[in-house]
């Protein structure tokens, strides 16, 4: 009989398989969903994925980067309106419109990231909060472009003309796939980033700015670009939102939305890969569930209570909970590094000097 927790060395195939398992399982589920679930569930899942994608973006900035943003609804909205206006008013193709959303949000994100170089913590939170609060007013102000309070209507993307998208649920299926592709891309961007040199720089800046700079991290570049990328991802989520709802009103991007993003991030588990996705689903479905259960304004109380309860039950989020549960069954032990080769440090120094010659002078 196996003793729990079972130890799995990090160089085994089993370890690699376990690491891949969630991703594989997710792909399978994603593929199966259109066949097994009723259409309304599919559109709910698309909606939750939009939430998740925005939270993926927020998590990059706030979770990994440690820069709290209370203005992400603004980027979300900016992305939505960019796509909405391009599609509804200028009849641009969706890929182009989505791209434009990402680019616009990236650029605005970089600009907003500038104050973040000087202003930190709570102060930064308040600067971004102000942006978030202002966004709906700006939408109303530029009503010629945005439709103002009356809303921007007629944002429609027709599914491609293939047999798969033939039935009456074509639109929903199409939106589902669009959403999945975008969410996948968003996650890929974040995951690749986080697992790289740049990712370590991002976290290092969060943990100890001074030390990170001394390691060679260009704070200005990393911080502003990070803001931009995060905003770009939120913008992509916004673009999806525009297409899914078909209608944009400034109220859809209120402060409450930012707060939901934040709640989702923490509930799922901040600075984790899967946290934002789980959190996005949770924050999307909890209100639906709680109003189904109580069917009245009391559901708001229930929602608040559930948020508090979840924080207490899972202080490090759903992912944290899953991890500590898993730790009761398996642990991963480090493996001895490859036998020491001749010390490469001389070589390293030489290469660094090359880099330095490139960059320093």
């Amino acid at each position, binding site marked *: 009989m196996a003793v729990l927790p079972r130890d799995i060395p990090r160089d085994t195939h089993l370890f690699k398989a376990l690491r891949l398992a969630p991703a594989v399982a997710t792909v399978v589920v994603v593929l199966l969903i259109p066949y097994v679930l009723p259409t309304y569930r599919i559109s709910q899942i698309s909606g939750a994925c939009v939430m998740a994608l925005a939270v993926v973006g927020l998590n990059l900035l706030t979770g990994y980067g440690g820069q709290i943003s209370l203005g992400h609804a603004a980027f979300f909205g900016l992305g939505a309106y960019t796509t909405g206006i391009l599609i509804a008013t200028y009849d641009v193709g969706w890929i182009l419109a989505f791209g434009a959303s990402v680019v616009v949000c990236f650029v605005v994100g970089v600009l907003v990231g500038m*104050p973040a170089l*000087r*202003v*930190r913590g*709570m*102060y930064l*939170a*308040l*600067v971004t*909060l*102000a*942006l978030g*609060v*202002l966004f709906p*007013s*700006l939408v*109303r*102000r530029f009503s010629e472009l945005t439709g103002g309070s009356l809303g921007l209507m007629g944002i429609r993307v027709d599914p491609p003309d293939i047999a798969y998208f033939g039935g009456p649920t074509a639109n929903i299926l199409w939106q589902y796939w669009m959403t999945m592709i975008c969410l996948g891309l968003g996650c890929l961007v974040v995951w690749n980033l986080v697992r790289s040199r740049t990712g370590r720089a991002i976290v290092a800046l969060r943990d100890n700015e*001074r*030390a990170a700079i001394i390691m060679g991290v260009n704070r200005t570049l990393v911080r502003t670009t990070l803001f931009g990328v995060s905003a770009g991802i939120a913008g992509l989520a916004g673009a999806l939102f525009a297409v899914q709802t078909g209608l944009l009103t400034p109220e859809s991007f209120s*402060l409450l939305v930012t*707060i939901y993003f*934040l*709640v989702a*991030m*923490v*509930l799922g588990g*901040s600075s984790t890969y899967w946290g934002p996705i789980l959190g996005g689903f949770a924050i999307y479905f909890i209100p639906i569930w709680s109003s189904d259960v109580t069917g*009245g*304004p*009391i*559901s*708001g*109380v229930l*929602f*608040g*209570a*559930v*948020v*508090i309860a979840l*924080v*207490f039950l899972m*202080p490090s989020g759903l992912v944290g909970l899953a991890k500590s549960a898993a730790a009761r069954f398996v642990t991963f032990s480090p493996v001895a590094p490859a036998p020491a080769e001749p010390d490469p440090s001389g070589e390293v120094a030489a290469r660094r000097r090359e880099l330095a010659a490139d960059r320093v002078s």
Partner: protein
Amino acid sequence: MDLLIARVLDGFNNGVIYGFLGLALVCVYRGTGHLNLAQGEMAMFCAFLAYAFIGAGLPVPLAILLVVAIGFVGGATVERFLIRPLGHDAEYPILLVTVGIFLALNAGAGVIWGGDPLVFPTVVPSGPDDYIAVLGQRLHYQKVVIAGLLAACLAVLYALFRYTRIGLAMRASSSNPDSTLLLGVPVHRINSLGWAIAAGVGALLGPLVAPSTTLNTMMMLHFILYACAAATLGGFDSPAGTVFAGVMLGVVENIVASYVGAVGSDLKQGVTLLILLAVLMIRPSGLFGSQKVERI
């Protein structure tokens, strides 16, 4: 000229409220370094409680005093059971709990007292003619009372923070709670006290503004934003700075919104944003805040 004075006065009246609620935020922040997003909703809920007491026959001032006491105890209770167990470093979880409290109180007040706005009585006579004429403008008694109470709260808190060892202990425990504890300072109780005072200040404010906003679940949503802005501008741990910043924001945004056509009432909040941004770019920790000490 009259119009200008009227506008300054309008702005001042709002600014006093921003500063008042900002003061409550400062009380929590000063001891713990946390932002209580539910501060406004706690004040709102207390206003509803006061309404219930008044309905039960209590005179208005007494009802307000009672809810201040309830707020005080409630604030300490919230800290004890919902914040403290999370540990001091749990920045995001604590933020989330305040969001949870926010949602629950907002919805809860709606469930208990319904969605219709209610009329809340003033502490002083408040007919159209109950005002002091100031430079040809009408300054209503209630507004005078609010400003006066704000000044009183500020004075008390300033003295508390500045001249007592509790104030020292508060600053110490927000800077380094572990070391502070090792000197025998009951850090938890200090934190509770911060929450309690904050909730008490909020509980005082709620019933005072309710007559002009009408008593409803949304009444504080708007103020909490400005209160945050005021606290930020003031430097987050400076009571006087916060009150000053609140009043300044109120006046400036009103003047700008009224006289700069392109701004207008719809972008009034934008003025606040710009002021906030401009000040923070020059002084990253607010007008009166001290920069966090970092050395390597």
